[in-house]
């Protein structure tokens, strides 16, 4: 066995690759991004110090300001919808129903489907003139809905798509939470003559609180970083009403950021 000099702790050496990785891929980009906030730089020409100009510029950008509102609206629609749908299916799939494994897999499938595939699918479903949903509504004698071509409908449509895509993950989380609730609590409640709703409201919901927090945190993160699907579906339209213009999306569209400094500021 090779011997190390006594003063060097092998742990330090073994930790070095991780430290190098951390410095190179996390600390350095973070510090460099912060420096770029105060510079104009297009990668090929020398950096130019611009002070607070990048910060002033993003607040003069009406699309950026709209993007903050859009993100708030999207989260307000998306999070409650996601929680209600996920909880409903988690409770259902937690029961002893036939083909439970099949349904669990089925609901989880959209999570692993590529975002672009989901986008194309929903673009065709939501198409105004020849989309499947509007054909269905027409067959029922109902008027067409301008799913993606109205600033009122576009955001709920995208929230619907995002919920369909991600709900499987939250079903799994809720199911894990449900299975950790001690069955004695339900038995005791049953002996006390409680109804199903009372057991759900007074036992299940409070006991799922930690899971609920996780789901909300993950939904908020997902909502903030949602970009590809709405960008491909609506490009941020109609009239800046969808989350292409979320702060993350705005910085990701290089078209709007000729100055990498402004991207970093965003």
């Amino acid at each position: 066995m090779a011997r190390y000099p006594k003063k060097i702790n092998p742990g330090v050496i073994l930790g070095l690759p991780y430290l190098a990785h951390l410095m190179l891929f996390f600390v350095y980009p973070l510090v460099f991004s912060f420096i770029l906030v105060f510079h104009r730089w297009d990668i090929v020409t020398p950096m130019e110090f611009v002070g607070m100009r990048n910060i002033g510029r993003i607040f003069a950008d009406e699309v950026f300001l709209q993007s903050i509102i859009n993100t708030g609206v999207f989260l307000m629609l998306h999070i409650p919808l996601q929680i209600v749908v996920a909880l409903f299916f988690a409770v259902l799939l937690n029961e002893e129903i036939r083909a439970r494994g099949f349904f669990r897999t089925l609901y989880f499938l959209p999570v692993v489907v590529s975002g672009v595939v989901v986008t194309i699918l929903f673009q065709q479903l939501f198409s105004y003139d020849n989309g499947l949903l509007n054909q269905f509504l027409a067959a029922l004698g109902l008027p067409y809905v301008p799913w993606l071509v109205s600033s009122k409908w576009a955001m709920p449509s995208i929230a619907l798509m995002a919920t369909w895509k991600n709900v499987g993950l939250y079903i799994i989380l809720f199911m894990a939470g449900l299975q950790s609730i001690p069955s004695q609590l339900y038995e005791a409640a049953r002996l006390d003559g409680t109804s199903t709703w009372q057991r759900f409201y007074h036992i299940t919901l409070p006991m799922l609180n930690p899971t609920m927090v996780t789901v909300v945190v993950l939904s908020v993160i997902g909502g903030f970083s949602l970009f590809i699907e709405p960008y491909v579906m609506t490009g941020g339209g109609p009239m800046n009403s969808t989350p292409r213009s979320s702060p993350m999306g705005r910085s990701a569209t290089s078209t709007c950021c000729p100055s990498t400094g402004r991207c970093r500021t965003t």
Partner: protein
Amino acid sequence: MGKTGYRNPVYCMAFLLLALAGCGDPSNPAGDSGNGVTTLTYWSAPNPQEYAMAQDLVAEWNRDNPHIQVKLQALPAGQSSEEVLLSAMVAGTTPDVCSNIWPGVTNDFIRAKGLYALDRFGDFEQVMTERVPEDIIESVRSADGHIYQIPWKTNPIMVQYNVTMFEDAGIYEFPRTYSAFLEAAAKITRDNDGDGRMDQWMGFRDIRPIWWQRYYDYYTSYITASGGKTFFDKGELAIDRKASDQVFSFYQSLYDNGYFPRSSLQGNAFLYDVIATEFTGPWNIAYLENNAPASLRYDFAPVPVPDDYEGDIYSYGDHKNIVIFSTTKHPEESWEFVKYLTTREADYKLLNFARQIPVRKNLLEDPEFEAFFRDNPMLARFAEQAAYTRGVDSIRDLKEILDAVARYYEKSSVYGAIPPGQATEEMIEAIRVIREWNH
């Protein structure tokens, strides 16, 4: 090293670093091989037709020039050619010559001192004036007075239309003006299956506010309506307000009346008689030849003009130019190769192999090309239009400016939320703010 030496983390790390260092390519991409042969690197566009043409040209050059050998490479894959070239510039790995340069990005390259000024070559002026029309030469002159690029090819935007659908509507000549186009649209847009909803439209454009989509509607029509003007004149914002209003208004009429649908259409709607027109370039000819059903009769016509417009009909031309990068160690040899790429013979190959239009004077009258255009009448339409094309302004912030255009186009033309005049004024103000903040 002892038996367990390879387990020592220090050795492992050193080995890893050496292995990583070994991954680099130490070869000189362009240089002398030591036997008097100069090797140049040439990047062409990666599309199969153009690459095949480049292979043919390079093989011929290498055969005829044993002392200047050219190594051909298709532009490496990336999100866009501009992004790849920018990365290469930062890394210092640009080729000697590249023939896929979008004029909108050359200004950035020039500021980065990445391009070689071609007008430093003694015979530059002669080569340029023999081939390229005077106004196009001026359009590529940089702000510092030098010329860094040779206008090589252009893809003029025209209207592709379904002849049968027009004839069925009683229209035997493609409409020249906005009014005539709207009149034709009213006849062609219809409900064929009687369910009370339209299922056949005059045309379709992607309405998403994506900057480059506006090249094929607003920007093309703006160039047409303004008689060949772009947004800037000698670096100063000079948008023709009247032309812009007319364009916003024209598209607003198309969407308001339902002649263009606001929704997306599945598949290629033009192939199956769902839409009667499409704004497109010559690249679509090969696509139609290979994919259109035998029953589809199509033709190409110039973009419609405002009713009161008189004069030549201009259009947007997606230019691609040739440059020599300043990293070259052999500018003279590179220039010789560039001259070869722009000869009449090479231009013929560009037409024949790649079906793209060279930026060459009197293309249609040139006996070298006459037989070709007789056999390819569709391409002849584009060649005719090529003499009346304008590209993009070679300025900074172009993408951001077009992003603003896309927003006002959507607001006014697609959804009719603001009148055309207001859209033009607000768009100009937005562009002014972009310029002011970015400079």
